[in-house]
């Protein structure tokens, strides 16, 4: 019996990578390319690399935007904007500041948040609180659609947080609320929410094995 042990290590572009099927590799080589490599090639104007990059990240980009915005049509629109920005600004990606996956997801999340906040300027409080109840409903849908290991892993790590940490983190990240709004929704002091968000992320970081 052959047994090979694998050292533990970082896992940063796990999410988009897992979306690649062997058949998408064509000649078999391209599946071996990292998101970082692809983005580097895209920065040099490589169109085919952009297609491959699209296939690797589109679902997670769309997924997170949809989580925040909920509305499919708007989510699609923002996803398109973000992905085109990835093409346009690939030249400005700096690998020393983090992974390509993080760069892309950060951009996606921020765009979704921007959209929510500008739209919310005209919404009233009640409507916004109603949105909170939809978080669970969409969770269930997402759970049916995608329940692969990364999700299980993240979910499990989220379960390891205290209730307040978890609610603070997910209301902010998936719900798109500011920390002041989160404090209001949860009925806790601002300072508490600040620390719960930080502590929650630190705990999540350790559980997920994110290394600096």
């Amino acid at each position, binding site marked *: 019996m052959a047994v*090979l042990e*694998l050292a533990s290590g970082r896992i940063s572009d796990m999410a988009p990578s897992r979306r*690649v099927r062997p058949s998408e590799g064509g000649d078999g080589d391209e599946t071996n390319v990292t998101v970082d490599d692809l983005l580097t090639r895209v920065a040099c104007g490589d169109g085919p690399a952009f297609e491959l990059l699209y296939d690797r990240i*589109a*679902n*997670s980009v769309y997924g997170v935007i949809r989580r925040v915005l909920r509305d499919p049509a708007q989510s699609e629109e923002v996803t398109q904007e973000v992905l085109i920005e990835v093409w346009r600004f690939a030249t400005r990606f700096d690998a020393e500041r983090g992974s390509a996956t993080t760069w892309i*997801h950060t951009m996606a999340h921020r765009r979704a948040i921007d959209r929510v906040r500008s739209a919310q300027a005209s919404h009233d409080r009640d409507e916004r609180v109603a949105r909170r109840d939809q978080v669970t409903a969409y969770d269930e849908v997402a759970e049916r659609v995608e329940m692969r290991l*990364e999700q299980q892993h993240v979910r499990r790590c989220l379960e390891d947080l205290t209730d307040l940490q978890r609610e603070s983190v997910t209301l902010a990240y998936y719900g798109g609320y500011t920390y002041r709004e989160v404090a209001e929704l949860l009925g806790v002091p601002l300072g508490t929410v600040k620390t719960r968000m*930080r502590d929650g992320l630190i705990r999540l970081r350790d559980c997920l094995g994110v290394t600096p």
Partner: protein
Amino acid sequence: MTDFDPHSLTGVYALDALDGAEKTRFEAHLHECQACRAEVAELTETATRLAGAAAAPVPAELRARVLAAAAEKRQQSPLPVVTAISARDRSRTPRWYRQPAAAAAALLLVVSGGLGALALDEHQRAEDAETMTTRVAAIATHPDRVELDVPVSSGGHGIVVAADGSALFRTSGIETLPADQAYQLWILRGDKPQSAGVLGRGGELEAFVDGVRPTDALGLSVEPAAGSKRPTGSLVLRVEIA
């Protein structure tokens, strides 16, 4: 807000939950505070894992629209202060970025993010890893694979993905053992457990196990650092493959 304390806002900022003047002030502070930048980078990376976990099938028609639109857009020139990665810059990136087999992990990162850390300095090892990478990918994407997630009795949990006589094992959040102890993985078959390797003291441990039968179980026990021939302690995890 009068008591502006930037150091407590790193998590809030990483979650994009800061806005208005407070955000501007915090960003100004970031320019001056290396420790804050480091913490924000780390927490942002953590937060974006939540994005990966939210993946949902993107409408198929979007692909053609995005590709067509991109083809018509001119790319921005690199900012002078922010270098695009080049071959030269990449030599400064963490080692795992440069490992071809780590990339191969495209698929296997599904289950096995840690593969990127394989030591591949020597050519031979690289070849071994590549072979293994292919095999791991085959398991991770096998249509009939079994995916199991079970708790470890002393804390944390273990994930097993098995297909075609092989299994990937990975732990998450398990208790770190003292220096003289280690977790050892076992194939439990009848009354003869076979060692599948001493994995380490804690954290995210991984193993690729070959020759697994559907009737086998995997077990994890705490052993002396050098490992044991048979499990000496009680199992902290036991999982039936079938």
